[in-house]
């Protein structure tokens, strides 16, 4: 039997015994977790915890050395095309082309996924409407505010209809209203469309009690599970207290 062909009900993301080092610096150490349909998982860690390395490995910017990453059952190293086609990504750094219009940026992304133009147009219209930017479609990305650009990037990540969404510190530098919009939007996607989301952040107040949390510290997972469980298991009053207790450092 072909080991690479996944079962139809394979979970959106399984990371198993993942380790990665840059030279002698161990960036990730024996990291394992699973994300299921509809899960909204907050990957909580301080700067340097290994969040960006983890995201780079899941998006196959470079290959992992030890362990495995499977997206809907497809091992990213062996079946990168199958895996990446099912993944939507919002990068930490802004990645819209400021000299192109919003629509042009989105059509470019659709082309990278091989979508036909007409189908792309319909999906773009829908996604951009859901983030409330229909009237800005034909303006250059340069003219948008930081929050608006992030909304476009979320719309872009969903154009090829992935069922797994990765967001790498998407709220950095945004005002409170934009931050709340993103949190609500992703929450809605998980609740109503069964999308699975992995949201990396170093901001503890983005972790609400309805989410799951993975606490990553110095390349290791210290705790994971639904937020109330993690709070209870660490005998804490809040996720903030749990985080501080686990890491021995004060979070933001």
């Amino acid at each position, binding site marked *: 039997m072909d080991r690479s062909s996944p079962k139809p009900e394979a979970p959106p993301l399984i990371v198993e015994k993942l380790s990665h080092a*840059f*030279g002698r610096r161990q*960036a990730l150490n024996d990291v394992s977790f699973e994300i299921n349909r509809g899960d909204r998982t907050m990957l909580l860690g301080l*700067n*340097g*915890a*290994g*969040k*960006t*390395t983890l*995201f*780079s490995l899941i*998006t*196959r*910017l*470079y*290959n992992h050395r030890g362990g495995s990453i499977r997206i809907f059952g497809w091992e990213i*190293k062996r079946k*990168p*095309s*199958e*895996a*990446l*086609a099912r*993944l939507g*990504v919002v*990068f930490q*750094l*802004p*990645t819209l*082309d400021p*000299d*192109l219009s919003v629509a*042009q940026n989105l*059509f*470019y*992304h*659709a*082309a*990278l*996924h*091989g*979508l*036909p*133009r007409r189908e792309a147009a319909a999906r773009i219209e829908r996604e951009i409407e859901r983030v409330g930017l229909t009237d800005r479609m034909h303006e*250059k990305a340069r003219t948008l505010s930081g929050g608006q650009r992030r909304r476009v990037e979320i719309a872009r990540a969903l154009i090829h209809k992935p069922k797994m969404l990765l967001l790498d510190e998407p709220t950095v530098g945004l005002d409170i209203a934009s931050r709340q919009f993103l949190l609500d939007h992703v929450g809605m996607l998980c609740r109503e469309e069964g999308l699975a989301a992995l949201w990396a952040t170093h901001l503890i107040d983005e972790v609400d009690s309805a989410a799951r949390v993975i606490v990553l510290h110095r390349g290791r997972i210290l705790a994971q599970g639904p937020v109330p469980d993690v709070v209870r298991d660490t005998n804490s009053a809040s996720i903030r207290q749990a985080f501080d207790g686990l890491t021995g450092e004060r979070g933001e």
Partner: protein
Amino acid sequence: MMTPVHYYRCLRGIVWREGLRFVNQRGRFVAALVRPLVWLVIFAAGFRFVLGVSIIPPYQTYIPYEEYIAPGLIGMIQLFQAMQSTLSMVWDREMGSMRTLLVSPLPRWFLLVSKMVATVAVAVLQSYVFLGIAWFWGIQPPPIGYLTVLPALILSGMMLSALGLFISSAIRQLENFAGVMNFVIFPMFFASSALYPLWTVREANQKLYYICMVNPFTHAVELVRFALYEQFNGEACAVVVGALVVFMGLAILGYDPGRGLMVRRGGGPE
């Protein structure tokens, strides 16, 4: 599953974006055109009587200096375009646009080749606009030459953009375009046959002559020069194709997620 039609749509999208970027950045469009024209109109006029150009192939008669350097300036257009479009991916917002490209489900080598094709498409367009303006300045190669130069433009453009991609994967020191100008563009441009026939270089300095001869840019310029006058330069063609294969191989290796320099560079700052 990715089928040929997916590949086609992806390639079309990448070329389309490169074209849009070029048209939308009006400053870049004008600069790309003015740069070679300044050389043609001012530099060449100044040196017209300093440098005597004897009859060398592919020319059949004494030619004015302007006519000699026109193919070299086309090479300059291609060199700038290649470096600008490939290297800008790296430093534009710290690899932002590169990363969006690389999460495409299509194979990475195909994405890189598409990027090269897009770069070349713009460079070819620029070259023809330059040739059009140069025509009014008296640079008037035979009409068929405008057709026979096309494959030469494509081939040399591919070679130069492959070089740019390779550099973008390998080097992190070149943080801005000034660095690329000083360490890549100027050395390649000046140590070549773009501005002076190589026999004059040989008389002046034997070592420099050898450097010019191993410089693939020299052969790119000669390929274009001969093609513009309806002739085929086999040696230049062989060197350009060879360099294209080598640079492309290195670029694909450089972006290979398993062994490339991406691995050592890491995912950027955390």
